[in-house]
């Protein structure tokens, strides 16, 4: 992490809030908390560029909980919307038509449906053009706003409305989650990071680091989803924390393509502890335990951390 940081403990969390309470999103929404924390670090001069998703409904005319600028574009093209705003601000400032005091940080905010699937091409284009913007993907691992259908972010073994658990399909989704972090990293985006609101200091520091970097700054925030995943809204942070502690959600960053894990659990908890907290994985344990599937998930987590620890030289006790 950066040597100099404002954020040493959670007490350093900025008091200013740019999202007023009483919004229309679900109680316990991990995505909303991610946006709130992200905004605290960036400050008030922000324009959010949104693609279709849960957060779109937060801004329903004529009400807005947001104290900064907002632009809803379309499902597939929020990064292109960011391109238009960034370019316009740059060219108008260069021509003296807009004073520099009106400059804004341009931040794309989408769910995983837009980031992993329909907007993947537009993001690739924006990275390629070295667009100076932030991308915050709140990753709830499915199309949450339409009622929880699978996306390419949905993990192996998760039930979803389009991978329903049934006699002929006992495991739910049988594809592996797409590795968006590496997909973005491999294009040599200057900064890519994963976030989890349960690890606030790690979160704040990564956003802070992004503010010092020119070009695409891409973040994937693990976003607990009470309605889609099936848990009580008060458990969001605990479940997110378990995802980190079991190694299912690695906290890492990539600077110019070089990966560094920012928070390493010394001893991985078994994935079962995480999986058992959520309705979407219940079929892995009831009516009988699907041992092979749970083993497969554990093996894939272990393989990931074995490779990462070898590459970076840290010690970790696998589960």
């Amino acid at each position, binding site marked *: 992490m950066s040597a100099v940081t404002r954020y040493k403990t959670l007490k350093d969390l900025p008091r200013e809030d740019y999202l007023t309470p009483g919004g229309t999103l679900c109680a316990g929404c991990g995505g909303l908390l991610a946006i709130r924390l992200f905004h605290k670090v960036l400050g008030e001069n922000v324009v959010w560029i949104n693609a279709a998703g849960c957060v*779109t409904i937060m801004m329903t005319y004529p009400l807005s909980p947001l104290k900064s600028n907002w*632009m809803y574009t379309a499902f597939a093209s929020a990064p*292109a919307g960011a391109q*238009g705003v960034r*370019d316009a601000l740059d*060219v108008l400032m260069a*021509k003296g038509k807009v004073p520099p005091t009106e*400059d804004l940080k341009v931040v794309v905010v989408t769910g995983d449906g837009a980031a992993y699937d329909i907007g993947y091409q537009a993001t690739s*284009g924006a990275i390629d053009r070295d667009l100076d913007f932030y991308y915050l993907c709140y990753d709830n691992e499915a199309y949450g706003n339409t009622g929880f259908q699978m996306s390419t972010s949905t993990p192996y073994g998760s039930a979803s409305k389009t991978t329903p658990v049934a006699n002929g399909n006992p495991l739910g989704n049988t594809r592996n989650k797409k590795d968006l972090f590496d997909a973005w990293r491999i294009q040599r985006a200057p900064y890519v990071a994963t976030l989890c609101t349960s690890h606030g200091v790690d979160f704040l520091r990564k956003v802070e680091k992004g503010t010092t970097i020119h070009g695409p700054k891409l973040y994937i925030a693990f976003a607990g989803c009470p309605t889609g995943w099936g848990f009580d809204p008060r458990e969001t942070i605990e479940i997110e924390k378990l995802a980190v502690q079991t190694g299912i959600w690695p906290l890492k960053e990539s600077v110019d393509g070089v990966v560094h894990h920012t928070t390493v659990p010394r001893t991985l908890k078994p994935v079962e502890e995480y999986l058992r907290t959520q309705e979407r994985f219940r079929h892995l344990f009831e009516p009988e335990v699907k041992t092979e599937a749970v083993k497969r998930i554990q093996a894939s987590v272990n393989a990931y951390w074995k490779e990462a620890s070898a590459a970076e030289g840290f010690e970790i006790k696998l589960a």
Partner: protein
Amino acid sequence: MTEQLMTGNVAAATGARLARVDYVPAYPITPQTEIIETIAWWVADGKMDTRFVQLESEHSMLTAAGTAALAGARVFTATSSQGLLYGMEMLYNISGWRAPMVLVNVARGVAAPITLEPDHNDVLAARDSGFMQFHAETCQEVTDLVLLAYRVAEDRRVMLPAIVNLDGFYLSFTREKVNVPEQSKVDAFLPGYVPPHPFSATKPVAKGTSVMDGALYSHIRYSTHAASLKGKEVFAEASRSYEELFGRAYGPVEGYMLDDAEYVIVMSNSFTALGRQAVKRMRQKGIPAGLLKLRMLRPFPAQEIANSLKGKRVLAVFDQNLAPGLGGILYPEITSALYHTKGRPEAVIPVVGALGGKQTTSKEMESIFEAMLKVGSGSSPEPIFLMRDTELKRVHQLVARATKEGS
């Protein structure tokens, strides 16, 4: 004012240059590409103070165009055919955002089958998008309509984007003489764009927000319609000052030998030149033929069309497009404009032709007038689909070759 020979594409780029556009997001597609190549060159060469960015698709290109316009930039871009359809979702968004900008469409038939030469299925697919539409017959009109389009689009009473259409190949790659307007006069006609509510650090705004109330949604949609209709009046004002400055007058429609005509063909874009020739030849034969060219298609100039065509005996609407299962797209629009007009024509013949740029001879154009002469009062006219015997024979030969039945 200087006269220059230039293609329709360069005429479009010239309009953008004279408008001093701030931003051009681009993506190549035949037959439009020469426009963005020309602008890319002018920007690189310092002849335009413009930010030029090549996007990775028309969908992204139009998204960037719309958000840049909302941020306060004067935006220009261009596309054709598949590109317009690929970005179609964003056309509805940009008009809903009330983001004024100009998009040049270089008309090209739509796949499948994939083709390159023009018809108007691409641009007419955008007819309900909320973009205003101005269609050009000549290279001169291309430059002039781009400038007029900005003036109308950015007017606070309108605040809607506009498409300027020109035909691929027939106009895009045809060099014609263009009177290039003087920059100082253009600056007077078209001052810099001042956005009403740009994104701002001091006064934050929310744009494109969701509307979940049907009445509110309806109200916003009705407002967009009202703004488009207002565009007619604003276009008329803009056209008057354009004429004062540059000596060229543009109405939403334009008649040719129309005043005493009894048999009138209604058409648009570059093939209108063929229509004019046919009218001239019919006149030589003593037939009172005439032509009405459609220049503005959105807002739809129903009153001007009705006024121009009332009292005529028979019309033919030349549709260079095809809506399978309906016929020509403009036919029902023209006939509906006439329905409540006293002295409306006795018959209106639907004609479909020149699809995919099919070459159209003077004989074919004259055959339309011959059909008008034959049609009886009160009878339902037979639709005409233009195709010459020699062409049909060649089509059969090509099909036979593909199926090996001919060899």
